């Protein structure tokens, strides 16, 4: 496989015209680089930079250039910078996107205007369903999938009732819909909190306490997760009601909240301890270069660059051959850090989901370890609404 890639790349270098070889492949990368969630954007940018280092900043015999843009966690600004990337910088690919509402606002700016769009995080149900497009690929998940896995875990643990909390925006609604779809027990109450500026959860936690559920399920990404975990512990709930989360306890929040999160369980399609060659290279390289564990945001961003490379390599750097690139990317055989996966009709991954436990390892670092596999080759529930096949 590697040999074939090298031969292809060498062939591409020979075939490529001088003008084309001088012209780099341009990738626009939209993420949050300011405000509170800047730390998530930094993880994504660091991972993309690491991927560039690992591939020698070359794809299909051409140089590669990544242009980073800041969405300020604001759909309006996300759309504006996406428009700039597409119309002014004339990028070949746009990737990144932490937030579902930012991706939804920016979607039409890319799709139909030439470049291909690869989401490295956000997976809103609309894009998996009726809005699906052959020029869109995800290297993450559809929002509902991870909480669906968590709902299954709660069933297996025999938890009779839960209380649900999530922020009030596109992804929050998807997360709650996901857990409601698979969880068979009773949902005693649910709160959608104001996003992103509500930082105090005292009113909601008091209600959760009064409802006396068997467990609490939450989705609070980024800094909000840190706030939630602290307030959960301060309210004395950590000892009395077990907490199950998605996208809340990760390599970003763990070093901040430390022992408050140790032992908590979360579902995810990737974990730093997954045993495959690509993941070892990625995690070790990331830790060596930046001195910290990568988050799933980083893993998905690394995969996004590798997926783009697979597409550009297949057409020997001729990015005008979109059909060729689509076909190559659809195979998903680029060696993902999550292990093998395939693409469904809507270009969202069909992949495994794992249960991860937050731990303090022997070196005194806070990280997560894989406890078990919850779903094997799991597909999202919106793919039937997507007209592609």
């Amino acid at each position, binding site marked *: 496989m590697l040999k074939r890639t090298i031969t292809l790349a060498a062939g591409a270098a020979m075939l490529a015209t001088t003008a084309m070889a001088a012209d780099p492949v341009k990738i626009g990368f939209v993420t949050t680089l300011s405000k509170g969630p800047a730390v998530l954007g930094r993880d994504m940018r660091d991972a993309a930079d690491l991927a560039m280092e690992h591939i020698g900043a070359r794809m299909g015999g051409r140089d590669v250039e990544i242009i980073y843009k800041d969405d300020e966690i604001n759909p309006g600004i996300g759309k504006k910078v996406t428009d700039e990337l597409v119309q002014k910088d004339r990028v070949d690919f746009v990737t990144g996107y932490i937030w579902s509402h930012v991706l939804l606002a920016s979607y039409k700016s890319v799709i139909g205007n030439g470049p291909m769009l690869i989401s490295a995080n956000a997976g809103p149900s609309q894009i998996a369903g009726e809005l699906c497009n052959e020029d869109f690929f995800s290297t993450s998940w559809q929002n509902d999938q991870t909480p669906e896995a968590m709902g299954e875990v709660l069933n297996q643990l025999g938890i009779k009732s839960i209380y649900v909390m999530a922020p009030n925006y596109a992804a929050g609604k998807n997360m709650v819909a996901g857990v409601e779809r698979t969880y068979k027990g009773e949902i005693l109450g649910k709160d959608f909190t104001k996003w992103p500026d509500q930082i105090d959860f005292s*009113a909601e936690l008091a209600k959760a306490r009064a409802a006396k559920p068997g467990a609490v399920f939450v989705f609070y990404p980024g800094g909000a997760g*840190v706030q939630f975990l602290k307030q959960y512990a301060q309210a004395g709930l950590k000892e009395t009601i077990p907490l199950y989360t998605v996208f809340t306890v990760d390599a970003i929040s763990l070093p901040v909240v430390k022992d408050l999160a140790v032992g908590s369980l979360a579902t995810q399609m990737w974990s730093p301890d997954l045993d495959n060659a690509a993941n070892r290279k990625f995690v070790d390289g990331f830790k060596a270069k930046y001195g910290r564990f990568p988050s799933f945001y980083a893993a998905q961003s690394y995969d996004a660059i590798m997926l783009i490379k697979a597409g550009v390599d297949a057409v020997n750097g001729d990015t005008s051959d979109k059909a060729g690139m689509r076909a190559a990317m659809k195979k998903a055989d680029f060696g993902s850090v999550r292990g093998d996966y395939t693409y469904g009709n809507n270009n969202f991954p069909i992949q495994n989901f794992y249960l991860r436990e937050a731990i303090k390892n022997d070196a005194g670092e806070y990280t997560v370890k894989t406890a078990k596999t919850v779903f094997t080759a799991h597909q999202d529930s919106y793919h039937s609404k997507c007209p592609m096949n």
Partner: protein
Amino acid sequence: MNWILLIEQTLNGLQLGLLLFLLAAGLTLVFGIMDLVNLAHGSLYMVGAYFAATFTAWTGSFVLAVVLTLPATLLVGAVVEVVCLRTLYDRDHLDQVLATFGLILFFNELVRLVWGPAGLSVPLPEFLSNSLELAPGLIYPSYRLAIIIASLLAAFFLYWLVARTRIGMLIRAGASNREMVGALGVNIRFLFTIVFGLGAALAGLAGLMAAPISTVEIGMGENVLILAFVVIVIGGIGSIRGAFVSALLIGLIDTVGRAFLPDVIGGFFDDEFADAAAPALASMSIYLLMAVILAFRPEGLFSARNG
């Protein structure tokens, strides 16, 4: 309705309201006395939180950090006033808004350079990180109780300072008629520096108390600042009493809205509608309150200028 839950939510509302009061008190003083629109007040809140995080890491004690943070934010406030804001008093409000908005950007970048983009966390001492059983079944986090007590003490101190001391008399006089105070030979420049420093220290106090509950992060003051402006507009600009009353009002309405609106709406409409409407209405509730109060009392509840 569960009365324990009601009491707990009232305490939550009180705690949020008192924290807002500390922030709004400084804002209303500066606005009312110095006639300065200070958008950068939230930055002082952020600086207070970062100081608290750093001093806790240095000294290993949250209590010591509190003692160090207050004079440090007062000093930052005084320096900002002397270096930057003095030249703005004669300009109109639009120039002040522009300049203090620039200060927000400046402080955000400065914090990024000094502390980095990742958020910081402030660990609480053991005796504040648990929860107390106030009455049978009524469990409340001890740190939130501490916030309520500390804010009430700060409010009382402010009341004493403004109502019972010579400096407070000058502050009140400055709020009513600042030209006259200047004409009577009071050093207005020095008074302004003191007032601004005091406001900064109060914002710093709010920031440092919020730090262990939330993450200390860049831009943390900007959302709170909007609420603080709502508080001073409802309370009447320049009136500390008004800020106190309206801060408590807003804290309670916001908390009660978040706590009980979903159930109330869920009782009348189907679940899907309630899921969508309740969070939206709850986050609008304080702005609705502001609109109603301003419709009947455009000067706010307590107007400083009219006595």
